[in-house]
């Protein structure tokens, strides 16, 4: 939580002056009942109309000064809170991108997005409300008690008894009802989950004719949530009546004691009225405070979630400057690589040793969960190896800066992810200065030129968020073109042909071979037909390297590879052995 204070930098003046102005307003407000008491006890009693008017004008004056102070405070609060929010968001955003993939995966994208958006907003609102109201309410409460003492110490004792009582009631009701809000949130999550599940499974639910069961399950969950809300409502509905009973009974006490004192001449009528006013003011201020508690509880919970991210240190240090590449070294070399995912017991990959020369193509094959994608993550240093080393151009990947290492790769991830913008803005993601010619060239290779050309706007055709306006195959082609456009030294295709039909897949491979002579290509696939022409094929089975060689070599030497080819109809002729 402390870490958050640095985001007040540049707004400290507002942070301090805001409450000061708010206090000034509250002080002025505290004098009003006293002035009114004087009007009654002096003005009315003596029949002095001038005195009454003078005091009335004075009250107006106080109101006007109070208004000025309040406006100043609100302005400072807005500047401070917005400034705080901006600094926080900026830094948080950078931190999120500074996380290692392991940290990112552990935190989860959804949760990080929530922290960046709604949590940051919540904290910002908390700051704003804190400056505006958090000081005012307790000050008015304490101030009222002090003012009551200046009028009459004996009656003021009632304040000393009733104010803590009201605070106690507030505390009891709030502390008992706040935990319920978590339950309510959980209930709403359940509603959302059921609704989502139902929509997603509409076909299956109907196939089994289970609509009625779904409806009744949803109904029960909704009813439970509704009853819970009503139960909490019953509790929090106690707050206002009980506190108002306490305050009003205190007023009864004030009038009763006041009557006795007045009989003896110890207090005047107007002063009793002032006391009553102070009591009303106390109650109102405390109720505001009670409502604020909800805001602050939320803000504090959000602040904690935000701080968790700030507390994460990047677990993957990088050097100041990259080590120089070695001459004549293989483009890629895995040397006894072993990797265990954080929190996983078994190694995801183990004993991986191979190398690839510039211009060569590597095919990686094996079933899901065998560690193919893990290899890519280690190669591009999304994760650090647990044992062994991964080298690119003869240099350990850990000896490159992240920027330099990434500049070498063009990665086509499994999930074709595009950003909203245009075809051009997506293709230039890794190559901001690429010419149209380069982009078209990349599209040709990626088998995407035809469809882009056929669309209105061509390269400037709009792409919606996530590429919603494109088919799976079109998205995939654009992601491939995007990787090619930056003219990488190493192209990585992580099962990237899965959304392409076989004919396009074949055309893509032909084009890659023809156009990318100097580029090393790493091609991951479950389809033997995709990788069988690669210069080298790496066969993985359950995280272990069980074959490395050409298609023909592996058909001879590697049982797993033979089995894969056979099951996919690639090696039918005489491979029973």
């Amino acid at each position, binding site marked *: 939580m402390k870490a958050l204070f640095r985001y007040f930098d540049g707004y400290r003046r507002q942070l301090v002056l805001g409450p000061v102005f708010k206090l000034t307003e509250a002080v002025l407000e505290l004098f009003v009942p006293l002035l009114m008491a004087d009007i009654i006890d002096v003005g009315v009693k003596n029949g002095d109309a001038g005195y009454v008017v003078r005091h009335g004008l004075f009250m107006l004056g106080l109101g006007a000064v*109070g208004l000025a102070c309040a406006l100043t405070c609100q302005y400072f609060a807005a500047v401070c809170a917005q400034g705080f929010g901006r600094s926080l968001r900026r830094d948080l955003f950078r931190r999120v991108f500074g996380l290692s993939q392991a940290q990112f995966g552990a935190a989860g994208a959804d949760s990080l997005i929530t922290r960046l958006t709604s949590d940051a907003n919540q904290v910002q609102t908390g700051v704003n409300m804190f400056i505006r109201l958090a000081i005012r309410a307790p000050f008015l409460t304490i101030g009222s008690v002090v003012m009551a003492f200046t009028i009459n110490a004996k009656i003021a004792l009632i304040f000393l008894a009733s104010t803590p009582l009201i605070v106690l009631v507030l505390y009891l009701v709030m502390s008992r009802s706040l935990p319920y809000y978590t339950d309510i949130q959980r209930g709403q999550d359940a509603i959302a989950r059921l609704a989502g599940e139902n929509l997603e499974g509409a076909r299956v639910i*109907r196939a089994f004719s289970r609509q009625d069961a779904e409806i009744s399950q949803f109904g029960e969950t*909704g009813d439970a949530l509704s009853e819970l809300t009503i139960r909490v409502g019953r509790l929090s509905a106690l707050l206002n009546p009980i506190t108002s009973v306490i305050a009003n009974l205190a007023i009864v006490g004030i*009038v*009763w004691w006041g009557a006795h004192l007045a009989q003896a001449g110890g207090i005047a009528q107007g002063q009793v009225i002032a006391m009553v006013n102070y009591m009303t003011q106390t109650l109102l201020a405390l109720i505001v405070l009670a409502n604020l508690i909800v805001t602050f509880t939320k803000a504090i919970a959000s602040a904690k979630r935000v701080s968790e991210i700030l507390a994460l240190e990047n677990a993957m240090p990088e050097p100041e400057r990259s080590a120089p590449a070695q001459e004549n070294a293989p483009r890629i070399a895995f040397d006894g690589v072993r990797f265990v995912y954080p929190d996983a017991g078994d190694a995801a990959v183990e004993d991986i040793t191979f190398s690839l020369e510039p211009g060569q193509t590597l095919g990686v094959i094996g079933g899901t*969960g065998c560690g193919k994608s893990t290899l890519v993550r280690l190669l591009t240093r999304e994760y650090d190896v647990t044992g062994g080393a991964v080298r690119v151009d003869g240099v350990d990947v850990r000896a490159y800066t992240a920027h330099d290492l990434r500049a070498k790769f063009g990665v086509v991830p499994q999930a074709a992810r595009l950003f909203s913008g245009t075809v051009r803005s997506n293709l230039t993601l890794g190559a901001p200065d690429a010419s149209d010619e380069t982009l078209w060239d990349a599209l040709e290779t990626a088998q995407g030129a035809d469809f882009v050309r056929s669309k209105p706007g061509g390269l400037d055709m709009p792409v919606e968020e996530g590429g919603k306006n494109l088919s799976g195959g079109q998205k995939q082609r654009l992601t491939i073109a*995007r990787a090619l456009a930056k003219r990488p030294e190493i192209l990585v295709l992580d099962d990237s042909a899965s959304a392409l039909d*076989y004919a396009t897949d074949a055309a893509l491979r032909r084009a890659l071979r023809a156009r990318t002579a100097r580029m090393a290509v790493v091609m991951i696939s479950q389809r033997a037909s995709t990788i069988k022409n690669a210069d080298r094929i790496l066969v993985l089975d359950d995280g272990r390297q069980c074959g490395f060689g050409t298609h023909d070599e592996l058909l001879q030497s590697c049982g797993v590879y033979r*089995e894969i080819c056979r099951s996919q109809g690639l090696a039918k002729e005489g491979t029973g052995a």
Partner: protein
Amino acid sequence: MKNETIRRLLGYVRPYRASLAAACAGALASVLFTLLGPVFIGRAIDCIVGPGQVDFSGVLCYLALIAACVLLAAVSQWVMSVSTRKISSRASNDMRGEAFRVLNRTPLKFIDGHSHGDLISRMVNDAELVAEGLLQGLTQLLPGVVTILGTLCVMAVLNPAIALVVVLVTPVSILFAGFVAKRTAGFFKAQSAAQGRLSGFVNEMVSGQSVVKAFNYTDRCFSDFDAICDELYDTGLKSVFYSSVTNPGTRFVNAVVYAAVGVIGALSAIGGALTVGQLSCFLTYANQYTKPFNEVTGVLTQLQTALASAERLFAVIDAETERSDAPNALAPDACAGRVTVRHVDFSYVPEVPLIEDFNLDVKPGQRVAIVGPTGCGKTTLINLLMRFYEVNAGEIAVDGNALPKLRRSALRGMYGMVLQETWLKCATVRENIAYGRPDATDEEIRAAAKAAYAHGFIKRLPQGYDTVIAPGGGNLSAGQKQLLCIARIMLCQPQMLILDEATSSIDTRTEMLVQQAFERLMQGRTSFVVAHRLSTIETADRILVMDAGHIIEQGTHAELLAKRGFYANLYESQFAVE
């Protein structure tokens, strides 16, 4: 339109008439007693004239009355709060329940054609906003209006002149609040637009962070983000500041009213037209009177929001539901598994014809393979066979019965469907397997799991068959999920099958199990298989070749190869060794 929405909304409140009556009674009573309090306090103060002149019995009497008022006001306020909470929560729950019911009765077209996120948000957020709007409307609007009127009445009775002053000055605060609200509306819109842009950007970039990083795009991404932050700062500063002007502004107006009442009241008291106690009563009222005005303006905007939300929920409730089954619709006990398709035309949108004059005759126990590039419309066929969508022309029949003559539940019960996108409920493994037959015994469930080669991995799950599947099946692999879906079908023993072979994302061993399970399932059953494996295709009795939604060729493997058309081309590029 608005009135119609309000009328319908009130329709959902009607079942809770008793609570509504209690809420209204509570509101009236609490306002009445709250208003009486200051009157009695004033009287009591009037009994305290000065030293030696205190009327103790009078004071005591009024204090007793005050105490009574306070207690009664408190009780009635509590009754009001609890009743309104009950009404708002139950009414919105009823609306949400009805919307959900409708969603389970609409043609799939509706669900496929709407963003799921949007529909979920209607069920969760909009229902919540309706409840909140109803609650605030009932608890603030009614008492607020009554308080304003009541205060006016009491003041007018006590002293018309002062009442007039209050009536004249108070609207200033309302006008002021209204002015601020109008001026800030634009700022708020700009702010929420900036907020929306920020969320969108964060969503996109954070979920795509690995791509952003891989392409060294981070610096440009940061500067874009900073620009949005700046925009949010500017718009936020304006909207937050200007809207926060309302409170001090109305407070100042209140102070003016208070001072005016004090001065005029004191002057009248000097003239003898008003007692000091009555003055104190006025002062309290001056504070009380302005408060509901400020609240009412807030509640009105909240009601607007609630009405908009109610409209969105009603839009779901009003969605067209499936025509119900004909009263004499058949539900045959047995099914031979003969499927005939005659002259079927179908399209999702009238302008884009998709399937035209489609004919097919599948004999019991035959296997039909559907092949074609990804996105070629294989699901369309499933939609028609299961009657998720209605054909535009022609007829599909099972055992000679046209689909509309069969009960939907009966027709769908004849098929077992395993889709590539597996769907499991967030429930135990046992409940998921028994999804189609909730009354199945444990032995039957186990037997089905064994037949689907799923028993092995289920046993190894932390709680075996009682393991709860995480939302989205997070704790299972894709292959395991598929095995559970097969077990689910095994338990039902349907006569016909619709299967979707996985293209990828299954590890080799599980894939082998799935394959075996599929084979076992297909024995003796009519089956439609969206096929990716050569063995499935080659052994099929009939192959349907689809492209871009159209069925372009059909026949056996040998026939189609001989034709040297699309299929032959596909087959060669897919499987032939180059």
